[in-house]
């Protein structure tokens, strides 16, 4: 058996809910997989689909996007706008062959430290099962190779 594959995962989260939920997981001393790197944003409304593409370009095997539950948005509507964008973007990625298992979305409130920790574990485990995102990584390798014919 090969060494356990450690997926690289990038998470984009809003500061008011999910980031606070992650802090709560910390203050509650819950333990979870260390594979996710968090980028903090004011609101899910600020999370652009471009971020997801750049995370993949950087070699991420998976991307997580998370924010406040509907109705809880600190900015009242940011997450509703985000939800539409994700819905559309997710369908687009799926159609392009970027599997939705690699790009996940969640609502985690500031009170859901446990949900955050569980999600970190389950996302890591799911992506570990999928293995490295070889197809995308192959595109990156191609950019480093001079053209031959």
């Amino acid at each position: 058996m090969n060494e356990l594959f450690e997926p690289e995962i990038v998470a984009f989260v809003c500061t008011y809910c999910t980031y606070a939920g992650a802090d709560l997981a910390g203050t509650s001393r819950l333990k979870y997989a260390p594979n996710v790197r968090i980028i903090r944003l004011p609101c899910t409304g600020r999370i652009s689909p471009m971020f997801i593409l750049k995370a993949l370009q950087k070699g991420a095997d998976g991307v997580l996007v998370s924010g406040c539950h509907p109705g809880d948005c600190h900015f009242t509507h940011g997450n509703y706008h985000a939800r539409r964008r994700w819905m559309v973007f997710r369908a687009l990625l799926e159609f392009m062959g970027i599997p939705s298992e690699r790009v996940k979305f969640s609502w985690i409130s500031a009170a859901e430290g446990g949900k955050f920790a569980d999600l970190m574990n389950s996302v890591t485990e799911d992506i570990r099962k999928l293995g490295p995102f070889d197809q995308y990584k192959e595109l990156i390798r191609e950019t480093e190779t001079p053209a031959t014919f």
Partner: protein
Amino acid sequence: MTRILLRDKLDNCVARWRKAGLTVIGPVKKETFSSYAAVENAAELDLSMIMPDRSIKGLFFPQTEPMLHYTIKKQALDIKDFTPPPEKRIIFGARPCDASGMAIDDPLFGWDYKDNFWFQRRNETVIVTIACTKADDFCMCTSLKLAPDSTKGSDVMLRPLQNNRGWLVEELTDRGRDAFNEIADLLQDGSEPEASIAVVPEKFDLDACVTWLQKTENFESTFWKEISMRCIGCASCTFLCPTCHCFDFQDEGDTYSGIRRKNWDSCSFALFTMHTSGHNPRATQSARWRQRIMHKFNYFPGKFNVNSCSGCGRCSRQCPVDMGITETLQAISTLQP
């Protein structure tokens, strides 16, 4: 004495060249698209096309090419140059206009700084051209003082025989001779009747056009605005053109390392001449189209004594709004000089 390559020997030729370490490239037609591409056997070649959608330019000057790899360290920048990997190639079945295009661009890539990427590939590639027996409404080599059987830029010229039997071999350069010596035993001596070469009517009077273009007052002519009104400013014409050669550098990477690339660029884009200040000296599409025509038929010949157009007609053939060099030069021909 002339030698003949019979079509039924072609597959053996391909095998032989490949065995000798050459990458064999030729016109290939896929479901929706055609180009010059590497093949493993003669069956993959489609020699019946008037010409592939893409020109052979990309084989020498790829649309994107890594130039150097950089690593950013705290106190230093490590740079590793890329060189094109050595690759001996033979392009079988190039069109005379495509081959001419490469010859037109040679002085550009070597007049001052010698572009190794270009010349290494040029030196390692044998261009075997087949004279055209067919042409379409967009072909205009004759208007550019070239012909369906121009040998310019070719290492070997093949003249089609009647009944599609094969080709009369005309070796033009040492490179070509070497490649054909490799398959000497597959050729046969003698002569057979040649198929007739395509008739490409002249579409405009190039000299009259050039005279008009060279007149300074015509630079500001309203003609440019009228002729380019429907131009949408894409780069389809420039990128398909065998002679258009503008490029841009782009660094791509993350915080720690990256690659500097050379990418095709186009005078059709508004961004091409955009200044950092926001000012754009070629602010309108008509100014950009004028630049393209002026460059090809006025500035480039002024410097290199050759028009930067080989008459393939791809610009018109593929234009989304049915424009192109032909229409413009035809219109100029009718203007008062």
